[in-house]
């Protein structure tokens, strides 16, 4: 409430944060840790060359290394920073609170990231030199880097876990139970296994589509394929553990989070889709262990897409089911504190929002008030004219119907926060949503200077 609200057009705030974050997850898990670990593995099993010329094997490793350095150094690191940049702009209250609660893990994370960058650059620049004379040192450096990468995962997982299972929060605000919360360990196991899972598939993909003898490709398929085989059951077991620990009130919304209201009536799609993913990956594993180039070429890209979708699915579920909270028990997804909501019901939200109505000399219209209330209460998840369009959700409802529904959204829909504001403000919001959804109100008609110009949708 003490920050002006920006509403991203069309995509909406949540989607922007989510898309950027998922790209980062795929690159950080799959390439920064996963593919890199495959390089180290390939380096380590050098002596077991199985008739593959050493120079070819070395060439493959170099190719993987170049991919890793190029991708992580540019897009990987920056999408990670992007998570921070997008949440700062779109969920400032939440990120500000989380930073204070988890300052030390974040500070340590900075040190870990810096070490990671130094390690990978050192490894990259010393690769050739160490390759000829100091193999063992090269292996050791590689292993050090992987460990550093896993430390970064360790630190982030505590914070992510807290956002769903907050440990002793909100009653007791201790740090350690908050960090080592119930979903910390299963999520950490899942993430580590995911790194190896994605990394092995990517490594095979690079091997089978670059130049090289069939022997190299066969060797890569078998070596990395074993990693895929090993990590898949760990992933499934970790996820079983994770969802066993997540309270039912959240996990029962998991299917909706993936299917959304467009597909909820075909809920069989959820099981079918996941089964298809597993089958595609198994087909790839079979091809990889078999070691023939053609089958590997046909199966590796579908497997990669399937694995990426699977990783994206988990992140989507994890982020969605915590609704209506962004910090369970403490803060709702729209930034209002759980404790503030009953206070706002008695004391006006408009009156306690420093950014409302004080920016101009002309009086604010009801539509402006409605738009502002929408921005504070709803825009964290809903757009006007974009993803999760409020016009579609409210279409056909009467104004008094909306007034009533707004008092009960948090009951009707388990992941929605309650309305924050007085009864009169609820009426203003109901009228606003009604007028916007039946076309009476176009956003351009709202007075420009009385609300944030960014509250307008173009």
């Amino acid at each position, binding site marked *: 409430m*003490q920050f*002006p*609200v*920006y509403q991203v057009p069309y995509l909406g705030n949540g989607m922007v944060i989510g898309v950027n974050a998922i790209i980062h997850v795929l690159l950080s898990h799959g390439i920064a840790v996963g593919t890199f670990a495959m390089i180290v593995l390939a380096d380590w099993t050098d002596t077991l060359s199985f008739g593959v010329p050493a120079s070819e094997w070395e060439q493959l490793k170099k190719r993987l290394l170049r991919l890793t350095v*190029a991708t992580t*150094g540019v*897009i990987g690191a*920056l999408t990670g*920073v*992007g998570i921070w*940049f997008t949440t*700062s*702009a779109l969920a*400032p209250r939440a*990120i500000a*609170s989380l*930073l*204070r*609660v988890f*300052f*030390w893990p974040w500070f340590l*994370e*900075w040190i870990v990231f*810096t070490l990671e*960058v*130094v390690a990978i*650059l050192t490894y990259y620049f010393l690769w050739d030199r160490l390759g000829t004379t100091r193999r063992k040192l090269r292996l050791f450096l590689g292993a050090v880097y992987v460990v550093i990468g896993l430390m970064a995962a360790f630190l982030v997982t505590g914070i992510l876990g807290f956002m769903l299972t907050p440990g002793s929060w909100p009653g007791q605000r201790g740090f350690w139970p908050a960090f080592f919360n119930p979903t910390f360990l299963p999520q950490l196991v899942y993430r580590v296994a995911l790194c190896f899972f994605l990394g092995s598939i990517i490594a095979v993909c690079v091997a089978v589509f670059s130049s090289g003898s069939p022997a190299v490709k066969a060797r890569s398929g078998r070596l990395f394929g074993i990693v895929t085989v090993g990590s898949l059951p760990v992933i499934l077991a970790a996820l079983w553990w994770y969802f066993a620990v997540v*309270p039912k*009130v959240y996990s*029962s919304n998991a299917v*909706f989070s993936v*299917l959304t209201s467009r597909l*909820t*009536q*075909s*809920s069989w799609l959820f099981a079918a889709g996941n089964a298809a993913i597993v089958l595609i990956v198994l087909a790839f594993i079979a091809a990889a262990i078999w070691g023939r180039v053609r089958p590997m070429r046909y199966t590796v890209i579908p497997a990669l897409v399937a694995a990426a979708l699977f990783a994206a699915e988990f992140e989507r579920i994890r982020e969605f089911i915590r609704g209506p909270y962004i910090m*369970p*028990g403490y803060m709702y997804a729209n930034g209002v*504190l*759980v*404790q503030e*909501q*009953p*206070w706002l019901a008695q*004391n006006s939200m408009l009156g306690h929002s*420093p*950014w409302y109505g004080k*920016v101009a000399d002309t009086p604010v219209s009801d539509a402006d008030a409605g738009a502002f209330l929408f921005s504070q209460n709803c825009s964290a998840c809903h757009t006007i004219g974009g993803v999760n369009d409020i016009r579609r959700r409210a279409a056909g*409802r*009467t104004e008094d*119907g909306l007034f*009533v*529904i707004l*008092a*009960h959204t948090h*009951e*009707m829909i*388990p992941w929605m926060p309650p309305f924050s504001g007085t009864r009169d403000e609820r009426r203003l919001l109901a009228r606003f949503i009604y007028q916007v959804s039946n076309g009476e109100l176009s956003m351009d008609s709202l007075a420009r*200077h009385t609300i*944030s110009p960014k509250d307008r949708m173009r």
Partner: protein
Amino acid sequence: MQGLWDILIERPLAPGVLRAMLFPAFAAHIILALLTVGSAILAIGVSLRKTEPGRTPPSKHFMEHFFVYKSLAVVLGVAPLLLMQVANTVPFLTAINLHAASWMMIVVLLIAGFVLLDYYGINGNPDSRWTTAAGLAGFVCLLCVPAIFVAVVVTTENPGGWAAMLARSAWVPAGRGLHYSARFVHVLGAAVVLGAAFHYFRQPLSEPGARRRLLRWIAAALAVQLAAGLALFLSLSPVSWLRAGIVVPLVIAVVCAFAFLALVFKAQITGSGLARRSTAGLLAMVILPMLWVRQDLQDAALAPLSQQLATGAEQHEAAIQPFRTAALGTYEAKRVVAYDNPSTIYSRSCQFCHGTVGNGRGDEAPNLKIQPEDISAIRTTPEQLHRILLGGVRGTAMPVFGVYTRGQLQQLIGFLHKPIGVAPLPEQIPVKVSDDAVSSASQTFAMTCATCHGTDGRGTYISRQFLPAPPDLSRMTLSPRRAFNVITQGYPGTAMPSFAMLPEQVRWALVRQVHVLYRP
């Protein structure tokens, strides 16, 4: 701005400690960032000259380890960002939000800029138009980033101008235009000085011409720095800089800058080179005091607001304190309610309108012009109920329930049957009706009812546009008593009027007529 308050979670360290940590963290980041930007400026700058054939293009030297500088610059930026957001939470995040779109674009600009500049650096052939274009494009992307960062920082430091900025969608607070421009130029100038000095010592000695060129760059950049620095100085109000904490480091920095400029001139005139130690020492004594001044001014600018924010937080905390226990209780109660059974779904989603037993007399019924239906009186198929739940009833308060899966809705539909009382077929009407009444009802239906309900109960082209439209009587109907009441009293809030003027027998006969239309 009035009425702001700090967030209600305490800082992990005292603000003074955080600011002390910010100084070295920011210094490390900015030095690498300046080196990155400086390398790019130099590379693009010298690429405009033609290279002699057979020689490595000079830009390649500057871009050779660009990847390293930029990776370090980005990762070292994490700490100052963290410290700023924890120490100066509200001002910094407000400034970010006032520049939300540009702020988020930084990520895209950095990715695009780095990709293009890396491509340029690897190829670095100025005779290729594509590579030069890529380099220029990347360069422009990269320069946008300090432009945005400086705007955000200037906004952070001027809380008094936030409200007006919002109203005018301004880039910087009113009256800070000169300050912003000077500051931006000052950053670029520093990048060139630092970059040129750094690369000076990395140039191969076989190319003395390259070193001489770099000395000219340094001299020119220092001149720009002094001019921009003066403009920056003048853009500050005297009140802010007339303190020992500012004047002393400023004087040290300016004196060292001039000393370094003298060294550069000497190296140019005599042809001897710059010495590593004196260069590094002098530049350190320019940059570090300048960074000190920067932070000191920033802290001073934010001090009054910090006090207001702290007080505001205390007041806000006190205001919401009484609601803590109840809020925690609500949270704990909600946490154990999973929407995996129809009783819960009904009580949370339906009861507040339709009542505990589904008779339409929920708590919110008095607030609705069109009363919620008495569900127990509905006679229809499960498929039609499913359709209503998924589609809502347009023109009424009845919402769309696509948020529930098919399984959940089917469970709910079962619950609506038992215990609520929906049934697939209507009962017989409880009274006997005469043949006269039946024929009268038949005529009335054909002449009056069918104009809205249609002859088959499915409505007409016109009545289907009503909000709400008449229900499809071929797919759903009501219990005899309820149907009788609707015919008698009408359906308030909709187009269905009261037909109380008809004799009771005729109205019962109409009920039977309506039941005949129902073909499940």
